[in-house]
């Protein structure tokens, strides 16, 4: 006992005399403990794997040995007819989840529901010339999209988007389902390049490629509607992206597509493809400000096999004060210049002639978001019509309320004026001046890809 007390006293004295050694020992003990835990975790994983292999072996051994005993030259008996149970048994790829565990080797699924309400004057409804033509004074599913996306293999990823929406065509309203996007992206190409193939959103300008729920206001700007149509700018073909090895961000895009756009490029053939190019850069103005600048160009043919060229410049600025989770101020705008050949009939001789129409349109918006849940802003549109004479302008103040990241409500008032009645005087009603209330409700379910700046 006295010996033990002596040893303890000696050890205590030694420890007190060498605090550095004690600290080092403590550190080593902790590291040892950490390694022990890692070892135990690995051991448990190996045990699980061994258990699984053992069970698999037992199942194999439990099978009748007849097949293995047969000589190789003996022909296998004809396959029996599959039973109902065989049909019901999950097979690849449906069995992947069950075999590997939930969430393994499966792609991501996301659903976005975007519903829009529109209130406007009776004459606008009668003329079917509101912002959402044919759906005036209605609350309707503007876009319910199902997104499926994920890695195909180490070299590529795939995206598929189905879209369900209430459409108005030929005087009829109907809910339509369509394949909105489906494309493959090759990720591992050299020199900082990436190739996208399939039916892709063409990244022309700031907003034309965005899904409707990602637009900053409930409706797309007038110039995009007039120059590119109500459908977004989606095309079948290939797009090459190159992020230049520069100290600042420069992305160059080039693409060749069929040309299926309803308004500007409807040729629909690779014999006369729609060619597209874009250059965009980005400048940080201190820690709070950031400016994005892009230029785009596209050249193709219309459905009448006539020349169509579109050029655009776009800007976006965001000011996010230090420590804020959202921007306080967002400014954005885009100008488009269209050169389009059009068939024009001479009223006197009724002879057709091709004329070149040069048209300009632009929009700009400002938005402030002083609180996380609330944002408000205003957009101004001004555009000529791509072929017809005249112009229209619109102003649209709006407010957004976002209870969470996955739910958003927007309310907007939009006033539109057109310089001509032509084209807007339908069914004995004029829609030259339009006042509308727009309500938008959007929800996000499941996986959702982050939107870049």
């Amino acid at each position, binding site marked *: 006992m006295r010996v033990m007390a002596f040893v303890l006293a000696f050890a205590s004295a030694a420890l007190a005399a060498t605090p550095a050694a004690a*600290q*080092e020992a*403590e*550190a*080593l003990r*902790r*590291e040892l403990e*950490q*390694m022990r*835990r*890692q070892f135990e*975790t690995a051991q448990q994983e190996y045990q699980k794997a061994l258990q699984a292999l053992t069970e698999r072996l037992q199942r194999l051994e439990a099978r009748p040995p007849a097949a293995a005993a047969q000589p190789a030259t003996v022909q296998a008996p004809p396959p029996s007819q599959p039973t109902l149970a065989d049909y019901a048994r999950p097979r690849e790829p449906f069995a992947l989840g069950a075999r590997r565990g939930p969430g393994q080797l499966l792609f991501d699924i996301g659903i976005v529901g975007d519903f829009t309400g529109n209130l406007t004057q009776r004459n606008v409804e009668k003329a079917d010339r509101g912002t959402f033509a044919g759906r005036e004074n209605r609350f309707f599913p503007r876009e319910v999209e199902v997104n499926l996306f994920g*890695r195909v293999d*180490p070299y590529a990823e795939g995206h598929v988007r189905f879209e369900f929406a209430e459409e108005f065509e030929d005087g009829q309203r109907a809910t339509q389902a369509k394949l909105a996007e489906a494309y493959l992206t090759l*990720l*591992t*190409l050299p020199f*900082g*390049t*990436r190739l996208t193939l399939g039916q892709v959103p063409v990244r022309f300008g700031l907003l034309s490629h965005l899904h409707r729920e990602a637009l900053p206001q409930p409706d797309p700007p007038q110039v995009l509607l007039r120059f590119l149509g109500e459908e977004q700018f989606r095309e079948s073909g290939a797009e090459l*992206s*190159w*992020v*230049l*090895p*520069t*100290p*600042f*961000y*420069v*992305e*160059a895009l080039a693409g060749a597509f069929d040309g299926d756009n309803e308004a500007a490029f409807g040729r629909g053939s690779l014999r006369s493809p729609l060619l597209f190019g874009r250059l*965009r*850069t*980005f400048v*940080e103005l201190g*820690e709070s400000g*950031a400016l*994005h600048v892009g230029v785009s160009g596209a050249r193709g043919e219309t459905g009448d096999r006539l020349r169509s060229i579109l050029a655009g410049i776009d800007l976006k600025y*965001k000011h*996010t004060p*230090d*420590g*804020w*989770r*959202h*921007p306080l101020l967002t400014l954005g705008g885009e100008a488009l210049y269209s050169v389009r050949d059009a068939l024009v009939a001479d009223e006197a001789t009724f002879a057709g002639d091709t004329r070149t129409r040069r048209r300009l349109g632009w929009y700009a918006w400002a938005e402030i978001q002083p609180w*996380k*849940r609330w944002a408000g802003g205003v957009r101004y549109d001004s555009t000529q019509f791509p072929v017809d004479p005249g112009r229209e302008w619109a102003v649209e103040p709006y407010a957004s309320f976002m*209870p*969470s*990241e*996955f739910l958003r409500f927007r309310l907007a008032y939009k006033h539109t004026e057109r310089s001509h009645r032509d084209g807007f005087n339908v069914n004995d009603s004029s829609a030259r001046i339009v006042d509308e209330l727009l309500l938008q409700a959007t929800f996000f*379910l499941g996986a959702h*890809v*982050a*939107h*870049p*700046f």
Partner: protein
Amino acid sequence: MPRLLRGILAALSSLGVLVAGAPADATVRAVASTPDLKSLTELVGGGLVEVDALARGNQNVHDVEVRPSLMVKLRRADLLVVNGLELDGWAEAVVQGANNPRLLVGGVGRVDASRGVPVLEVPAGRVDRSMGDVHPQGNPHYTLDPQTAAIVTANIVEGLTRVAPADREAFETRRREFLGRLGAAQARWTKTLEAFRGARVVVNHNSWIYFLSRFGLEQAGTVEDRPGIPPSPGHLARLIQQMRQERIKVLILEPWGDRKLAERVANEAAARVVVLAHTVGAVKGVESYLDLFDYNVNALAEALK
């Protein structure tokens, strides 16, 4: 027009050749998604590694805007260290925009720092958004437990070794030295908070469970009703009542949190708000991973007195 286009393309190409053809550095270019991981990578990489971070210290690392300037950082990087567990899911969009195949999931330059970390609060059963911005793989704020640094730095060293195998020994040596210093510091932090073992605190966001668990403190509640969802008045009233009844003295807030709301709750409950650094660089003077705990331990001990 074609001449102009050719001129622009030629200029861009020559610029690209100039930059790409510059002599290679002796260092590994690493980028970490968060400042914590940047600091840990610097600590094990030393002068052999040039490290940058995507998120800044004053940002909430859950919500980082995907700016093209972040893509530039990844465009030339050899290594990307991510937190994982869906804390920095936005980093995937940055990788996508950078066109750097080395940094893709499964790529040679990709490090998931959470691999092997004992994760807390992994939800059992069904998970959906009614639970708020919940992390299905568990609470992702593991770097706030200094004990996890051994695993995290092991993952980082493994990644660094993949891209610079010749420097493995140097990385290992620096890691051992760092863990030695961390162990000594942790003994000091434990001693500082020993007097408050078992104390119950309220937090703004559920990011402190690793820190509190490591030092023997208990999380009594959160100001956020559910992660990422602003609290309802009813939830706040219940929380204030609980704080009064249990005489909870401290409410921990991140610099990005709602200070006014936190102070209102604390005042109602006769408690005080203490702002702790949720990551390196979140408050002035917290420049490294060791500074992070020095600051947080001292600030919390002061508040609990």
